């Protein structure tokens, strides 16, 4: 018998493993984007400070650096591996596919990351302690290395969503998966977003400047930078959408939640208005206001964006060949990867999954419910809570239907055949479909007694 390379499943009833990953990812996106943007802004400010010999500006760069060190670097450097850890436990095969395709790119990113961390320390500790040429070298190395980390992650993330070139499937090569029609627009959009986030963070520091004239100057400068970045960023974003192939455009229309586009515009308008207000009235800036804007960006800006990306790639989790429920669903001839759907349809997952306990290998009247639970765990729990809690809770999906026969018909008619948009094909055997239907029919009760 052929064995599919499936791992055990981790199930988190309250949030679902996907949300745990999502929360860590959102925090990481904010921290890392702020860091990179701040590196770019600092490099620029340090250059101005050194060229025009302005010690107070240098002091601002140093204070900004300390804030970044304590806030975004700590948060970014821990949540970064945190994403790996949470992706490992939520979606081992999805992560594995990315890691094995892009390990050298990630290792290269790590080199830049190392340079970046050393760079921020130097920027802070060497301010005013070395000659201006050396300080500029430090600042520019730091700025460019930070930006390079983003250049790398952009390609890996877009591979996750969609391999850049169709030829990747047949000919392979990490470059073909990495660079796609959307790459340049995405780099520009992200860079703008980073600078905008950095301007928000920079204002938090600027609000603490004692000297009123310098405080107003910094607030205005950052507002100008932030506003420009926000507007340019949204233009690049539009351009990026236009570079998508028609099929993906259609996908966007059908898959994105309805609130997505309006929310995006509202956020943008809010941020531009905020910066415009500061331009007109820099004294309005207070630490609490600046902090509130950062939090607002986190909640209203990044969360929907991350959610949208997640639903965009449904039912896949990586490279359009690994399903969210870890099953490989498409051949990748270049790498000798074969779809497992056929195998599972023939053998049944209960028989072939390496981590199914022996008593559940065969469905019988004594273990039907438990076998059904195992099936739901393996096939569904990545996207659905197996009860009344978690993401897309299963009880709500069935619209209150508790009739096992009807559920079984639905499973066989829509799931086994793969006729549901956003849902993977679930190649259950007949006895498995029956067991799953019984489990789903008994759900709330089972949830109370089960694990």
């Amino acid at each position, binding site marked *: 018998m052929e*064995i*599919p*390379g499936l791992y*055990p*499943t*981790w*199930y988190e009833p309250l949030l679902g493993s996907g949300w745990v990953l999502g929360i*860590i990812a959102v925090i990481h996106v904010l921290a890392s984007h702020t860091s990179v943007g701040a590196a770019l802004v600092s490099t620029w400010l340090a250059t101005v400070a050194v060229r025009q010999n302005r010690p107070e500006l240098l002091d601002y760069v140093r204070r900004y650096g300390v804030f970044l060190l*304590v806030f975004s670097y700590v*948060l970014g450097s821990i*949540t*970064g*591996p*945190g994403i*790996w*850890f*949470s992706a*490992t436990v939520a979606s081992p095969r999805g992560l*594995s*596919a990315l890691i*094995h*395709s892009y*390990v*050298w790119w990630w*290792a290269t990113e*790590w*080199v830049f*990351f*190392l*340079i970046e*961390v*050393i760079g921020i*320390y*130097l920027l802070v500790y*060497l301010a005013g302690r*070395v*000659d201006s040429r*050396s300080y500029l070298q430090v600042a520019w*190395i730091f700025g*460019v*290395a930070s930006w390079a980390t983003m*250049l790398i992650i952009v390609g890996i993330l877009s591979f996750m969503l969609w391999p850049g070139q169709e030829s990747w499937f047949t000919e*392979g*090569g*990490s470059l073909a998966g990495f*660079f*796609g*029609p959307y790459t340049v627009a995405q780099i520009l959009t992200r860079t703008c977003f980073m600078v905008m986030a950095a301007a928000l963070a920079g204002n938090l520091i600027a609000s603490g400047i004692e000297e009123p004239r310098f405080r107003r100057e910094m607030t205005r400068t950052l507002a100008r930078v932030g506003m420009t970045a926000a507007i340019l960023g949204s233009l690049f974003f539009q351009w990026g959408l236009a570079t998508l192939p028609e099929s993906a455009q259609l996908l966007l229309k059908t898959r994105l939640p309805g609130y997505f586009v309006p929310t995006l515009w509202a956020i943008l308008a809010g941020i531009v208005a905020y910066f415009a207000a500061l331009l007109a009235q820099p004294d309005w800036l207070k630490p609490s206001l600046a902090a509130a804007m950062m939090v607002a960006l986190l909640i209203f800006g990044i969360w929907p964006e991350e959610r949208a990306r997640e639903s965009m790639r449904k039912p896949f989790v990586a490279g359009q060949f690994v399903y969210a429920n870890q099953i490989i669903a498409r051949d990748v001839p270049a*790498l000798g*990867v*074969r779809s497992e759907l056929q195998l599972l349809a023939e053998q049944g997952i209960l028989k072939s999954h*390496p*981590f199914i*306990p*022996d*008593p*559940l290998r065969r469905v019988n009247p004594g273990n039907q419910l438990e076998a059904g639970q195992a099936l739901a*765990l393996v096939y569904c*729990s990545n996207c659905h809570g197996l009860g009344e809690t978690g993401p897309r809770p299963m009880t709500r999906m069935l619209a209150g239907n508790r009739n096992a026969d009807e559920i079984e018909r639905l499973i066989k008619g829509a799931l086994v055949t793969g006729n549901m948009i956003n849902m993977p094909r679930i190649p259950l055997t007949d006895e498995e479909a029956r067991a799953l239907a019984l489990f789903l029919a008994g759900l709330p009760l089972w949830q109370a007694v089960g*694990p």
Partner: protein
Amino acid sequence: MELETLYALRSPVGLPSHPIVFLVLLVLTWALHILAVYVMLGSTALALCGSVLAGGHWRRLSAAMLETAKVAVSIAIVLGVAPLLFVQVIYDPFWYVSNVLSARWAIGFIGLLLAAYWLLYYRYFRNGRETASHLTLATVLGLFLLCGFIMHGLSSEMLRPELWMRWYAPGGHIDPSGSALHDYNPWRFLYFVGLMVPVTGAWLVGYRGYLERCGERDTAYLDWVTALGKRCMSAGGLFSLLIYVSWMSTLPASAGGFAASAGSLIAVVATLALAAGPLVCRAGSGYYRPMLAAGVAILLIAASREALRLKILGGGFGYDILTYPVHFDTYSTLLFFITFAVLGGSTVAFSIALSWEAGKAQGIYTASPRIARLGNASLVALAVWLAQYFLFGFLTMIG
């Protein structure tokens, strides 16, 4: 788990280079990671001792070690990322299972580390203005150790494929909560954490050398630090050896015969070398020698640790990491090695040289022509890197 299943769990995508390359990088980068972890743990512990003992030299050492700890944490974390990458590349069937089976711990690790790090900063910014500072530092140290223990648990679970099913489905019923840390060995943990004592000893001796270079006059303090460092090295090294022996006597049957193998002998010799560190110490720049020796010793210990894993998985279960399928990816393999050696080499050398010299100088330091050239070379390397990125991107897109 059957051998056939272990092979099935490998990524069907395969590897972009030969497995041996990743194995070597894993050992190398883990040695760097754990070296930074030792300095981080040791300096935190010394800062704690100093704040408890509070008298004369201890007070000064405590403040200096707090500075060290703060930087060392970030270096330890950054250096941990590389082995985390490589371990999942060649040991994915094992690493992913152990992580899933202890998922809450793997996730909890993040929160605990974050708490520890921020608490350390908190303590740093409030230095001297706080009454309960021992408690804060003790908590930081405890959290660091707990993080290390989680790492240890994950590394241990991956070596017990024969127990996975019993952990995942006790009594034949699946438990998907990931709430237990199923396997650990107190001796192994104590050994890999206890090595912080001799390593930190070597670090202290190097610290003395650095202070002297910077023109420090307080010779009483310098001699006191040196003596403390040497004591940590010899006592810590010998103590580690005892722990090592206890660990070897508790290895699972799957490790059959490792304790008396050449791989194990390497660790014994390296641990002894740590204890003998004071012998290589000389005046002047010779104060840095113990740290250099400690680095080499830790690298050997890392190699021995890997030998044990290969022995258990290869000898005990018949798993051969060399049979991992390879789809060689020329571009990305070259990209990494060239970036690492040329770009990484020049920028890190520049950064270290500049901060080193600036630390020693009084007033504003003007870079020597050599350092300035290094800085320029780094910038050129970065520019070339960006150019090749967009060039290959363009070629891919039109190709």
